[in-house]
């Protein structure tokens, strides 16, 4: 069990700046994010797209913004728990017991939810029958590629993940690549390679096809694909892989009793606390009259939520407002003179 002052759920810009503000006022925090990297939507959805409305930064990309925020909180040496997701919140004697999917446990008086639109999850096949094989022979990511050796693998998708894995697995497996249109969005070199492998009959390429059904008694045996015109084909498959990118799902947050209003968490605008004591929500996931889904609003919300956390983390102390320009305590915390 890790004891801390605050657990921040979400390592997007809002969560990161809130962590900065927590560090400034002398609180410790642990940051959990479902992605394998820091930055949230800024990194996952638009790392290269310029952002023009960060105060005093005329233009920066999602990646630059993230890197600067990481730099800004470096002095506090906070722990990141990536590839992990907060699963359960339980109240226990004025503290929250926070459990993650990977089995980590935190004890904290405060939880700040900076979860954006939810956590990123792979988009799954729409076919109901695929659920039965989910995690065994219908997969959306690859952890151990050796399981595919000498097997028939049907790969769906047109992006880099689909192409790269089709190329890689074609060395040791019988690969079919199925995509809903003629064009691929993967890197041109990979697209070229796929075409070559297809001409040499190393990869079976099916464009303008999508999944219709997966079949098998006990273990997966075949996958049925259909064209736009309704033509269908049956392919032998031991494994079916889907690479359709990531979607955002609210996930377990919906079950924490936070009076959700259309996938958003209502908060007060004084300290962004929710209906539950010690649980705060900031950034895109919170809602209140006048809410703007801007990164700058998330920064403001994070600064106020951090002060809200102070009273539960240090119940016997009085919070004193200080400027970073003047306070020697803050400068100590930042490690500057």
């Amino acid at each position, binding site marked *: 069990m890790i004891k801390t002052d605050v657990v921040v759920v979400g390592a997007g810009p809002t969560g990161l700046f809130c962590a900065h503000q927590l560090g400034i006022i002398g609180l410790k925090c642990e940051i959990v994010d479902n992605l394998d990297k820091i930055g949230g939507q800024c990194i996952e959805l638009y790392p290269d797209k310029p952002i023009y409305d960060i105060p005093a930064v005329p233009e920066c990309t999602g990646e630059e913004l993230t890197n600067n925020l990481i730099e800004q909180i470096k002095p506090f040496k906070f722990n990141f728990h990536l590839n992990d997701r907060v699963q359960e919140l339980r109240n226990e004697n004025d503290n929250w017991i926070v459990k993650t999917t990977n089995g980590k446990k935190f004890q904290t008086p405060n939880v700040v939810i900076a979860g954006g639109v939810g956590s990123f999850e792979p988009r799954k096949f*729409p076919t109901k029958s695929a659920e039965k094989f989910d995690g065994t022979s219908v997969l959306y990511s690859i952890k151990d590629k050796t399981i595919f050796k000498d097997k028939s693998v049907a790969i769906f998708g047109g992006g880099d993940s689909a192409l790269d894995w089709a190329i890689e697995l074609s060395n040791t497996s019988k690969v079919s690549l199925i995509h809903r249109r003629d064009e691929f969005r993967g890197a041109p070199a990979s697209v070229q390679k796929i075409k070559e492998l297809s001409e040499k009959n190393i990869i079976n390429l099916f464009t303008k096809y999508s999944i219709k059904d997966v079949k098998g008694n006990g273990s997966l045996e075949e996958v049925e694909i259909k064209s736009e015109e309704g033509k269908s084909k049956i392919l032998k498959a031991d494994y079916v892989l889907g690479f359709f*990118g990531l*979607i955002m799902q609210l996930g377990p947050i919906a079950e924490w009793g936070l009076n959700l209003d259309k996938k958003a968490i209502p908060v007060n605008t004084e300290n962004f606390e929710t209906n539950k004591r010690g649980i705060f929500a900031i950034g895109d996931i919170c809602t209140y009259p006048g809410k703007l889904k801007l990164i700058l609003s998330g920064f403001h919300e994070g600064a106020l939520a951090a002060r809200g956390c102070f009273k539960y983390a240090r119940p016997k102390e009085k919070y004193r407002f200080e400027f970073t320009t003047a306070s020697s305590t803050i400068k100590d915390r930042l490690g500057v003179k």
Partner: protein
Amino acid sequence: MITCPIFFCAYINAMAKIKYIEHNGKEHDIEVLNGFSVMEGAIQNDIPGIDADCGGGMSCATCHVYVKEDWYDKLPKKEMGEDDMLDQAYEPKQNSRLSCQMIVSDDLDGLVVYMPEKQV
């Protein structure tokens, strides 16, 4: 000469009628201001079936709609990237579009879009 402000406003506030049809068949006829996207027309009028998680940045695929067949070819063509995002939509078809990329104008008056079963 006195200009008529009401007439002027009516002129700059030109609208197009868009029909949004939910997956369950429920229809919504909405007048959307020219210049707004078909996605914004749905969000502002609380029409269910369009999520628009990224807010119109062509960065997700949760404002996916099917355009009524005879309308599909009349629309301005997809820009680069839209099809890439549509690859990641729920059950994309030939007449799929991202509603955030369709900007309302007089030419779109009467457009009919169908919502998919779900966005995610």
